[in-house]
């Protein structure tokens, strides 16, 4: 700079020819030119400006235009703040020393904040009056912003730590950052999995420049593909003025931004797990020269915000998941229990507590073996051993007792619980009480068995009826009729057995059932006696026996001839049933040489099943059969 100053012809300026410059100016200039930092001389009443190489660098394109010009011309954007300080130095002759002072710059319409440490030292001329000022200046914007950033990050951390809702965290962070940076709009958006849409979750707006909250879902194409490609690489987008930015030149993007009122923008991405997940953006309605420090601040704050929000979301997801599974656990009809590897119970659900008939608190901490039967206890140990050796799930049935001693059968699916390294730390089991099902199955088995027995017995009875009915020498047609009638009587007797209300089958009903096949006229049959009811087996025997008596009467006895009659009487006498079947006015009775099946059956079945004696009387006046049976007692088939 020294050469440039010497080479210039100063004769037509306020400085005058350089040879005439006072010694004080020369000395001061010499000091300024040799200063390593920015140094300048402001000389004379107009504070004309001479500067060194370092200051020339600060001036950028305005060098060398600025050389020799008035301070209020050169420092036009910050002059309002400096004018008083210059008056102080020139008028009062006192040095001015400023540290980290904010100077709002505005160069060609681009505004930005900058911080400076500077001094103004009065220079006395030969006449003893202040001729000029030696100015020294150093920009401290970066260090000031770094300190501010550090302080802000601490405040942001403090704010976020107090919150647990991701939405609240976002709002707090945006408010803090927007106020700190003094931007018109600060917003945060997240990119969907496919990278197709961006969901702007929140904005903080200062209200200036007509930039409003733009929360909502947008296609990523709206901001241009290049735009998100840059962010996707993890790079920051920094636009001081959309009109002058290369990324804005494509697809009429600049016009679109200006249409939205956005003139300057600073956008930082969040890259997590190698994917572009979110972005934080600052919008300004006028050109703004973004500072490196602001960019760094936004990046650091965005990273922290993302981390904290992710943690809060994971925590919420975990909490929700735990609540959901807790509800399933609480409401399951099946038993759910957990235990450690010593098979000490660590938790049970209400279904388990209800079956065990004890409160959860009194079950937890006790060994499973306290509830299991000895055999099941061994089985549970074996199953645990199997799981430890081979892994997987065991499926088995255990017998256990409730607190009140009720024996239960549980069907249990049990699996080992593993820690993060895959080491078993306990077991969890889902069980179902199958006690009633097993009892029902056993009852079913017995019923089927019993049914089989009865059917086989009945078939044996049918076999007996067939063998007797079709005995050698009988007329085949007669045999068939006899067999069919006997089967019908047996069927009728079984109907009686399965009647819904056995109590209603009285003796007279049974008799009518047994002789029903005769179709005899009313006056030929007399049925008389007090009401009494019979046990099932006795009833079947009586029906079968009376059927044989009636059949005999129709074939050979009183009912085989016109005018013949059958009288059926009974009475109850000192706990005994005295029953009589008497035939009258029939053909002469002859004692048969060999007793047929019917009579043998009557004697045998009634004697056995009614627990009494049977007397058959072949009196010439008419056949008679008398039954004398106990009405009550162990062997008695009758009951009142």
């Amino acid at each position: 700079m020294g050469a440039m100053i010497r080479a210039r012809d100063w004769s037509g300026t306020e400085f005058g020819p350089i040879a005439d410059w006072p010694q004080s100016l020369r000395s001061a200039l010499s000091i300024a030119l040799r200063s390593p930092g920015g140094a300048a001389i402001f000389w004379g009443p107009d504070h004309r400006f001479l500067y060194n190489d370092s200051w020339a660098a600060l001036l950028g394109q305005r060098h060398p235009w600025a050389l020799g010009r008035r301070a209020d011309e050169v420092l036009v954007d910050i002059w309002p703040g400096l004018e008083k300080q210059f008056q102080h130095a020139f008028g009062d002759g006192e040095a001015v020393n400023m540290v980290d002072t904010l100077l709002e710059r505005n160069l060609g319409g681009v505004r930005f904040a900058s911080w400076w440490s500077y001094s103004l030292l009065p220079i006395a001329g030969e006449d003893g009056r202040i001729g000029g000022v030696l100015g020294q200046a150093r920009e401290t914007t970066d260090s000031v912003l770094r300190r501010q950033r550090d302080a802000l990050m601490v405040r942001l951390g403090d704010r976020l730590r107090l919150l647990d809702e991701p939405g609240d965290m976002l709002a707090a962070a945006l408010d803090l950052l927007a106020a700190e940076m003094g931007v018109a709009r600060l917003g945060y958006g997240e990119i969907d999995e496919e990278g197709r849409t961006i969901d702007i979750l929140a904005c903080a707006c200062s209200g200036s420049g007509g930039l409003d909250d733009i929360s909502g879902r947008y296609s990523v194409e709206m901001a241009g593909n290049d735009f998100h490609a840059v962010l996707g690489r993890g790079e920051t987008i920094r636009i001081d003025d959309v009109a002058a930015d290369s990324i804005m030149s494509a697809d009429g993007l600049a016009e679109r931004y200006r249409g939205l009122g956005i003139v300057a923008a600073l956008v930082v991405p969040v890259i997590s797990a190698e994917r572009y997940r979110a972005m934080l953006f600052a919008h300004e309605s006028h050109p703004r020269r973004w500072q490196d420090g602001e960019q760094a601040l936004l990046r650091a704050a965005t990273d922290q915000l993302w981390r904290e929000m992710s943690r809060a979301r994971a925590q919420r997801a975990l909490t929700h998941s735990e609540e959901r599974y807790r509800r399933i656990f609480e409401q399951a009809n099946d038993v759910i229990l957990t235990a450690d590897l010593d098979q000490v119970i660590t938790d049970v659900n209400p279904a388990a507590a209800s079956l065990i008939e004890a409160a959860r608190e009194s079950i937890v901490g006790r060994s499973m073996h306290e509830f299991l039967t000895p055999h099941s206890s061994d089985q549970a140990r074996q199953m645990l051993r199997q799981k430890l050796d081979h892994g997987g799930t065991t499926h088995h049935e255990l017998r256990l007792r409730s607190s009140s001693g009720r024996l239960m059968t549980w069907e249990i699916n049990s699996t080992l619980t593993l820690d993060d390294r895959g080491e078993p730390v306990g077991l969890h089991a889902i069980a179902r009480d199958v006690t009633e099902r097993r009892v029902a199955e056993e009852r079913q088995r017995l019923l089927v068995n019993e049914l089989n027995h009865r059917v086989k017995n009945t078939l044996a009875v049918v076999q007996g009826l067939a063998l007797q009915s079709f005995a050698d020498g009988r007329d085949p047609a007669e045999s068939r009729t006899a067999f069919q009638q006997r089967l019908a009587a047996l069927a009728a007797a079984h109907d009686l057995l399965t009647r819904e209300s056995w109590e209603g089958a009285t003796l007279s009903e049974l008799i009518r059932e047994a002789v029903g096949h005769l179709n005899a006229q009313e006056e030929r049959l007399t049925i008389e006696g007090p009401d009494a009811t019979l046990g099932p087996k006795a009833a079947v025997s009586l029906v079968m026996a009376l059927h044989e008596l009636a059949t005999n009467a129709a074939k050979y006895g009183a009912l085989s001839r016109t005018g013949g009659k059958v009288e059926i009487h009974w009475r109850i006498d000192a706990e005994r049933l005295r029953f009589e079947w008497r035939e009258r006015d029939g053909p002469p009775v002859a004692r048969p040489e060999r007793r047929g099946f019917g009579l043998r059956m009557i004697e045998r079945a009634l004697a056995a099943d009614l627990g009494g004696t049977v007397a058959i009387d072949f009196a010439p006046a008419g056949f008679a059969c008398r039954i004398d049976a106990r009405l009550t007692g162990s062997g008695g088939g009758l009951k009142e």
Partner: protein
Amino acid sequence: MSLAGVRVLLVEDEAIIAMTAEDMLDELGCTTVATSSNLADAMAATEASDFDIALLDINLNGLDSLPVADRLREAGLPFVFTTGYGAAGRSHAHAEAPLIAKPYQLHDLEKAIREALGR
């Protein structure tokens, strides 16, 4: 070898089945010396009657006839079980005794009696 003259105690609660069995035994030449239709009568008959073999229904009016089988074994008398339950109804305590399932036929009965008598 004929079964003629073999004396049989018949224990059967169903009269018609008992009569059929008696007729079958008759056909085989056996003599039915007594027929019992309940547990108490059957127990008494093992003492009172003189017989070579018993035909024993497993279920007597819902009661198990096992005590009769025990008594017969004590006395060293052979017996044949009859049952409507099939092989599943057999008592494990008397697995050596032949068992015939109802309804049985003449030759089933004959075979079982021969087996029990060792003939």
